[in-house]
């Protein structure tokens, strides 16, 4: 470990701060920076719901597609927006904003009264235990790599049954709310 790093660690490190940028810089300046970087970063897909930034593990995402025509299912739970036909496969599409209390009522996006979907809106097709399911997002932000030290997991005991926030991730000034796909789509 270089003296530079040790000094940084001793004086500047805060658990809630990300120093990866600096370390990367340090790694460029001398070739001995590796030992501290053994933490494997995990890739997350970040997206926006209303004004907040959310992320799900990228391994849970099967694909991202534009919002197709949705067919509403009569008498279904409110967070089920409808079904879509993806290359012959029938997929349910959910709205997680209700569960996250970002909205009071589901948007009208299916049926004859639905307008055109916003240009940036996408459907994330997530892999879940009960089969693939689509989730409406307002826009896709991109892929972020978060090291475990940048992630603050919600204490398991404090999470309610229906709590679908698995934790918080920080990268620089950006805060990512990590979603648990299984919980978010649980009936």
């Amino acid at each position, binding site marked *: 470990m270089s003296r530079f790093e040790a000094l940084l660690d001793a004086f500047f490190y805060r658990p809630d701060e990300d120093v990866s940028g600096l370390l990367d810089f340090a790694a460029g300046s001398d070739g001995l920076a590796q030992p501290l970087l053994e933490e494997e970063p995990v890739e997350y897909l970040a997206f926006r719901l209303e004004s907040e930034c959310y992320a799900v593990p990228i391994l849970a995402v099967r694909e991202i597609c534009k919002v*197709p*025509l949705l*067919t*509403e*299912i*009569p*008498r*279904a739970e409110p967070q*089920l927006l409808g*079904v*879509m*036909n993806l290359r*012959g496969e*029938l997929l*349910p599409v959910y709205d997680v904003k209700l569960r996250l209390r970002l909205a009071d009522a589901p948007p009208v996006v299916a*049926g*004859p*009264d639905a307008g055109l979907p916003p240009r940036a809106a996408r459907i994330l097709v997530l892999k*879940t235990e*009960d*089969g693939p*399911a689509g989730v409406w997002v307002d826009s896709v932000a991109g892929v972020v790599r978060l090291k475990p030290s940048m992630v603050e997991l919600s204490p398991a005991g404090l999470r309610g049954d229906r709590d679908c926030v698995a934790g918080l991730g920080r990268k620089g000034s950006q805060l990512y709310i990590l979603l648990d796909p299984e919980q978010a*789509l649980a*009936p």
Partner: protein
Amino acid sequence: MTPGGKALAEFVAEATEILDALGRDLLALDEARGQEADPEHINGIFRAAHSLKGLSGLFGQERISQLAHAAEDLLDRLRLGRLTLDDKVLDTLVDALDTFQALLGEASRSEEGQELTQRTRAMEDRMARLGSPPPAVEEDPLERLELDGTVRAVFTEYEEHRLRENVRRGVSLWRVRAAFDLTDFDQGLADLNARLKPLGEVISTLPSSRPGGANGIAFDLIFGAKVDARALEAGLKGTPAELAPLSVRPPLEATDTEVLPPLGADEEEEGDDEGLVETTSLATVSSPPLGSPPRMRAVTPPATVVGLQAAASAPIPAGRPKSEETSMRSLTQTVRVDIGRLDGLINMVGELLLIKANLQRLAETSGQDGTVALSKLFGQELSRETRQLERKLEALQEGLLEARMVPVGQVFDKLARLVRKIAREAGKEIDFVSSGGEVELDKLIVEELSDPLMHLIRNAIDHGAEGPESRLSAGKPRRAVVRLRAEQKGNHVVISVSDDGSGIDEVRVREVALARGLVTPPQVSEMTRRELLNLIFLPGFSTRSSVSALSGRGVGLDVVKNNLGNLSGIIDVWSERGKGTAFHLTLPVTLAIVRALVVGVSGRTYAVPLNSVLEILSVQPRDIRTVERREVLDLRGQTLPFLRLSRLFHLPEREVNRHFVVVVGLAQQRLGIAVDELFGQQDIVTKPLGGRLSGVKGISGATDLGNRRTVLVLDVAELLEEGIAQERRRA
């Protein structure tokens, strides 16, 4: 095809399969010429001959049946060791196989050649005359085995023979004792057998003299091990089996070079004292060694295999006496296809239908002037070709659907076997009558039917049919009759399970439903008898206070009803006290492709399977009456429940000056479903909602109508139910 041609084709297909199996075992024996024959193979051939005899008897194929009978006799003698398998016998069997092939060939052409008949006779004689007695045995090797005489007495002749063989060859014998729970002993026993099989030969399975615990059952397996004790123990690790060696006295004169010292003999301990009593026979000398006959003539194995599937009209293989015409062409034209592949093809046809619909639209628009700049001739050409395509597609679709059809008899046969077992366990005397097994249904539906039918039959035997004594005192014949019948009714198949037992006690049904809180007293007071009977389909309903092992665990008819619902079917019950009970299952013939009526409600589009649509009415709002606040229509003097789809689905209702009413019906039930628009008919391939959406009510799946928009398919059976339940609620 000649009348009965289908039956004949079926016979030929099955007989070919049997001969294939027979040939495989024969080939294995042939390859092991001169060595000790594997009893499994001889048994296999014996079973094949036996099935062939039964099958050909059933189809009136006298010659095959008689030859099979002769072969079965011969094989039985072989199996029991009354005849040794020498080259002569083996050759005879190979010739017999050829004769079978030739006979089957003639049968498939509905011929009966004189020459072949004579050859068959000769073959039968030859088999009957065969019979060099087995080498004389002076001491019965069995006498050397220390096994209780009472145990020996229950062996079948075959088991005794196998045991004798094993003793003679000096195989180490074990008694494997295992206790299982009564509920799943068949599974446990099968597992144990599978474990034992690679380690040696299971000679006999006997119920153990020792009880297997409170609700268990114990078995003694007499086992001839090919491996030593340690390997045997290792192989049985994890099973409830206990091992005890069966000791064998050495032959009195040690002349027999073939007798190997029992494997693992050094580890032999004193066997369990019970059941093992020293025999006191003073017989002498064991059997002389079996001289291994020289390998005379290698029948080229591949040729034999080919010959098995060969038709009778075929070239002549050299060297075969009275040579046969054999060829590589197989007799049967049957191909076995995985149902998944057919599903794939059906899906493909679905896509083709969409393309066709698009083409049709193009053709139509090109016919109208102005929209597209095309010559009139071209437009006509296009429509003509589209119509051609439509016809071909219809034929393709029909053919595919036909390929999926199997007779329901497949399930009926399985159930018939089960009935005997259930009746025995329940202590009832039952006559099982099934009819209509030839009615055809989609393979998938037939598969899904076996569980519900089994449940209903169990109920009929367990709850419906009375015991012999109470039947006699009620003035009925001693034996109860359980009937299973299938019948085609238009686009549907009705399967009924009925008994002539005591019937359902609706008073008791009412009490139980009230006691379990399934219904409230005011609800019950207005129910008709029929509605009361239908309470038995509610989850958690079971009238028997004691739970029997067979049925009556409280999950029962509701599961049956759900299973049927998944097949778009409906179940109905009829019962009369003292006379019996009947369940009627109404099922669609196929689920793969259905013709649907496309309707519009509040701007949404839905598809209604046409097979349940009876008629379509146009109704003015003033024609809708209310009876006790439920909306009904008067349809030719009959009251028809009226259901507004928009209201049921919580869609914004539109003001209309006339309703289209789609009258749907399944079994006895009718319902008028009000919609806003009718768009016409279309063939649809329904995709089930499945997975996360399986809880959605009133929708059976979704389909694509060609405009890239997913359209939901209404589940008529569920809507009927809801329509009727709604009435009940309001009443």
